[in-house]
């Protein structure tokens, strides 16, 4: 019957939308995790910067690059750490924007799903009557 075909189609539509929604939610979760990681790194870098500031001029600083400890200059190390902090902050901002985006999409998807559900319900009610 036409109505049952329409019903089936509406249900398939609902399934698709549900899948999209779950994908979106996974993306949002991943985004959260990456954000957390970056936030922790940012915190660590700020600590390092504080310690570096407390160091006297001429103190030896080493950087661990793989299995090698390389001697570094205080000024150089300062500059590097600052650059990293900037980079991480920029990344965080970018992630925030993406997160906003994803959340909006998620909301709209939810509404769409709701509508499809209502459609299905009305179809079923119609079928029942007929």
């Amino acid at each position, binding site marked *: 019957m036409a109505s049952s075909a329409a019903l089936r189609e509406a249900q398939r539509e609902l399934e698709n939308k549900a899948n999209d929604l779950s994908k979106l939610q996974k993306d949002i979760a991943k985004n959260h995790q990456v954000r957390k990681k970056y936030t922790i*790194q940012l915190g660590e870098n700020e600590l390092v910067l*504080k310690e570096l500031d407390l160091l006297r001029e001429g103190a*030896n600083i*080493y*950087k661990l690059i793989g299995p090698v400890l390389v001697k570094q200059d205080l000024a150089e*190390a300062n500059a590097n750490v600052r650059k990293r902090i900037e980079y991480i902050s920029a990344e965080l901002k970018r992630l925030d924007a993406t997160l906003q985006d994803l959340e909006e999409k998620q909301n709209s998807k939810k509404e769409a799903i709701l509508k499809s559900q209502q459609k299905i319900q009305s179809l079923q009610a119609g079928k029942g009557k007929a």
Partner: protein
Amino acid sequence: MDGMGKGTVTPLASLFPVEESQKAAKRVQDTIAEKEKELDHLRVFIADNNNLINLVQKLPEELHHDIMVPFGKAAFFPGRLIHTNEFLVLLGEGYYADRTSKQTIEVLRRRGKSLESQVNSLEAIIKDHKAEASFFIATASEAAGGLVEIREDYVEENPSKQDLKSGPLKQDVSGLAGAERETTSVDDKEFARMMARLDELEEEERAAERGNLDDENEGAISDFDEISYQRPSDNNLQNSEDIQRRMALKQTNDIATKFPKEHKYQDDMADHFGSLALQSQVRELSEGKTMAKNLKNSDASEMSTIYPEEKIVHATNTSKAEVQYQASRPSDDSQKQASTSSTVGHADHTQRNSRKEDSTSSQVGCQTSEPSFDSRRAFTGSIIEHAENLPKTSGEQNSSSSLVSGSQPSKPVSRFKMQRR
């Protein structure tokens, strides 16, 4: 007292289904468990840090230490630890620095401090979660026990709405009256007691007010400001009005002075309320007095259990935010108010208020009699119906529109009541 009300009886279970509350409680408890694990983790770190500090302190005591040096996975060989004052400290992110023992200890101490601050914040979070969980559990048990929420229209002299708990859930329920336990009978008695007391105090107040009205205004204010300011900081006043009110308070002290000097309210709340009430009154109405009066009246009327809530109620008229203020604040709103006991709902305040209920009620009693307020004393009691006083003191009363309207008559009934209709 249910007789006159037309009301609705809603089983609590329908509002907060049992299973759902239990599920919610369980979810919150899971989060609590997670956070506690993290907390343990951090505590281990802190312990390690302290051990390290001790070790670093001991090392420089000798020029060299004889030790067993680990060699590979399962072997050691005897060796010597030299340069005992030089440490290569990991600063983070792959950076190392040469430091002496003392400097290393400083670094470690700083790290320890940041760890501790993390622990503290985590503990605060856990506490919040626990409060939430306990609320859910309580709701679940209540719902299972067949508690019923009874909502009735406000009828004179018989406050039927009683808020027991206003938790976050309540917000869904139009944010108003919470479940009503079967304490109405008790409330009635209490209410009657309150009313009697109020009446007495009112008499005293009227007498006193005649004399006090004009004099006192100014003095109390300064104190008030302090009090009020303290409070607001606690509460997130959404309204900047409050702040303004406070300022305004300075200007118009009538109310402030009226407030219970005599009364011995120790509650901050009470004070707070009073001050807030005053302030807001002052500002909003620009009459000050009327507000106080209103509040007083309203409070008076509601007394008993509702008492504490009333304050909120006045305030709540509008919203929770008001409540945060703890009721006095709403006085602005209270103007519009009469809000209805229903507003009392807000959880935090209600709970707190109920705590203070007893004290406040007594205070209220005093308050009513005493129009002059002590800047320190919160209005709490101001329910006193200064209907007659109003014309005298403020003269502005009318403006408050809602407040004053109809309440002018000097009936002992709080103005609040009148408005509520």
